[in-house]
């Protein structure tokens, strides 16, 4: 029988043939936001680098995973992409419970969606895991990009009356509420990867690795310590090794 007190480095199999130090750290991440702001599309872009027009609404929540390499660690995001429709609102606590990260999404062309995002942030800060890392993402910037910078069909740009949430306003709110902030386009991919990379950097991984409590002496030495988390110097705009 395996001794439960044995250290993780001795018993953990090197899954997928990887170096045991690179055994992925699971991070539960939840996406929240009003219906049709593009939560599923952001995930689809991040996980499959793909985009679909007119995606069907999510029921309950969809579950996807994506690994992301960050310096000496591999993070496996377990992504719960929740349904935005109001009838599923009360299910949300099931999904954000024990989540280490949340991405709250709004639509830059719809002012009301930022209000909804703010109420999600409030709910998370009140009821979710106290260490949760929250990112605010203003999606659909492809709809408001000036025509000369956009590679998309210029006819798209004028649609829906353009931007309703100024970048500065949302940014100021994010700063005040202690959130990471991004503007993204799931359609052309702008800013999508950055959300997940920055979240990965900000999450206190040591805390996650040392769970469960009774094996606090079993931290794999290769996983803790010098992770460069929060030092802010590794922020590159490229993929920074992200395995997607």
């Amino acid at each position: 029988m395996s001794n439960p007190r044995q250290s993780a480095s001795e018993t953990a199999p090197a899954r997928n043939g990887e170096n045991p130090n690179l055994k992925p750290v699971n991070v539960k991440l939840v996406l929240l936001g009003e219906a049709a702001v593009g939560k599923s599309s952001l995930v689809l872009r991040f996980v499959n680098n793909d985009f679909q027009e007119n995606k069907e609404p999510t029921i309950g929540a969809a579950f996807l995973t994506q690994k992301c390499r960050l310096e000496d660690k591999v993070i496996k995001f377990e992504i719960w992409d929740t349904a935005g429709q109001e009838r599923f609102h009360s299910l949300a606590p099931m999904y954000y419970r024990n989540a280490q990260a949340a991405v709250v999404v709004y639509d830059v062309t719809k002012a009301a969606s930022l209000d909804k995002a703010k109420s999600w942030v409030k709910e998370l800060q009140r009821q979710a895991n106290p260490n949760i890392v929250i990112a605010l993402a203003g999606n659909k910037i492809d709809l408001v990009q000036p025509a000369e910078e956009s590679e998309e069909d210029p006819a798209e740009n004028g649609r829906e009356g353009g931007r309703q949430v100024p970048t500065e306003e949302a940014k100021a709110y994010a700063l005040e509420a202690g959130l990471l902030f991004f503007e993204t386009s799931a359609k052309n991919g702008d800013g999508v990867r950055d959300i997940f990379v920055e979240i990965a950097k900000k999450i206190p991984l040591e805390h996650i690795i040392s769970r469960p409590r009774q094996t606090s002496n079993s931290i794999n030495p290769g996983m803790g310590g010098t992770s460069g988390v929060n030092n802010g110097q590794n922020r590159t705009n490229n993929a920074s090794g992200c395995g997607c």
Partner: protein
Amino acid sequence: MVCFCVVNFDLELGQAMDSMYPPSELGEEEKKSVCFSAFPDSNSFDVGETVFNFRIRCSKSGLAASGPTADAGFLYGYVFFRQKKDPRIKRGYFQRSLVLLSQHPYVGLFSRVVSILGPAYFEVGNPMLEAACHDIASWKSPSPSKLIDLPFLGNVIQVEIPQPNKPQLLETCPFDMANYRPDLQILASLPPTSMFTHFRDMIKDLWLCWELMLFAEPIVLMAPDPKICSESVLELMDIINPIPYCGDYRPYFTIQDLDFKSFVTKNKPPSNVIIGVTNPFFIKALAHWPNLVRVGKPRVRKTTDNSWRGSHASSLDFVQGVKSKRKSVIAKDKAILKRLAEAVARGYPPDYLLNNILRRYFVDLTEKFLVPLNRYFSTLIPFHITLSSSQEPPQLKPFKTDSFLKSLQEHGPQIPFKTKKFQTNTTETYLNFYTQFLKCGNFATWLRQRTIEAQNELRKRYLQVLCEGDVKTWMVGKHEMELVDLLVRVKDELKLSKQDSLTDSQSLVNRECDHVSLSIPTPKQREKLKAQADIIISGLPRDLRESFTATAGI
């Protein structure tokens, strides 16, 4: 999974099905069975929640699996029951159950599913069921002995699906024991509360239970509530693993069950059956059954006043233990009893580890019991297979009781029989023990399964010989009829593999689960068989060669 059912207990209507999601074509009788099995049937339960399971006959609606397996014709129900005070309801109580119906006996997995979903559903309502079904629909179909991640309502449940007739133990599971989380890392065949926990005050009786289960004797298991009852029945079935239990089993059997009349008669009890009951009525009605196992202490009713002693009176009439006409002959293992008692006194390791020790012990005991049977069985398997060994794929020799008993006497048994002062002839004891086993249904299922395994193995070896055998050397000096015979056998295999390549991957998966069917040449073996056929053809006389190359379209 078939569907979720919501069952309500109403003062006027009694048990009634509120809804099914997704809508499902259960027959009226089956609906009734589900309803009655979904509630505690005695007053044991006061306020609170419980999770248990049942198994009901469900042959009419066609929802149950069909085929020769033990699961055929039955559905498994996994229940989350909640009872709480609610002044808005006439009876003063909210009494509802959420039932998951499935064709699969994965008690560990589905009990977890209903215990996550149940409370959430009663809070939130139908969108929760919708979300749950959506999650379950995204699950892959179960494949044995693989670790699968199942996303469910914000949790990722890791499950190991059992291989048929292989016990699931922590030693063999793929979980990282350093970070093991029993709530989310689940061995699908094991009930959520361990055998060690349920039987902790009567561990000594498990040796007798093992004998009763080994011979598939009729057993009534009486417990104070449906959870202990249903889980204990499954745990007793598991105790003789890897021998497949041949009989019928009802983890939670109520007086309203469709089969009530066939079980509860004045007649001699059916053999090969274990039923779990909570209603004391059965004690009298089935008093003529030879074996009664009582498990579990009645739950002390939760009251605000802790000094209330009324419950103790009733716990006194419920004495745990086994009443049996059988005299046990297997010696208990004092070392393991001591080890467990010490662990309990010390307060660690946790129950799930002690349970594993206990279950591991009985797996070993069963395997030791099987040693003489396996030893004899291996003599029935043809040893040598050569290119010319037979016309047909080789067959097993029949199992003969006399020769087995002779072999048993020669080598002796591996399990410890009790030695008594006045009992001089222990040989007689163990010969009787095995003779009795050969007569019971478990032996038949064991032999069948073992035969299938051996035939599969033989077939693999046969194919290997056909593929790898040195045909050139073998052909020297052989008559052309022998060559043609071998060629036909090789071509038969090629035909088989061609048929197979036409079927889709889904049916391949089905074939793996269905262990009756035999292995089919792999694409690699197919290439080798083709090469072998060419060699043989080249060694044939010209006229024959032409007739074969003309039909070589395979």
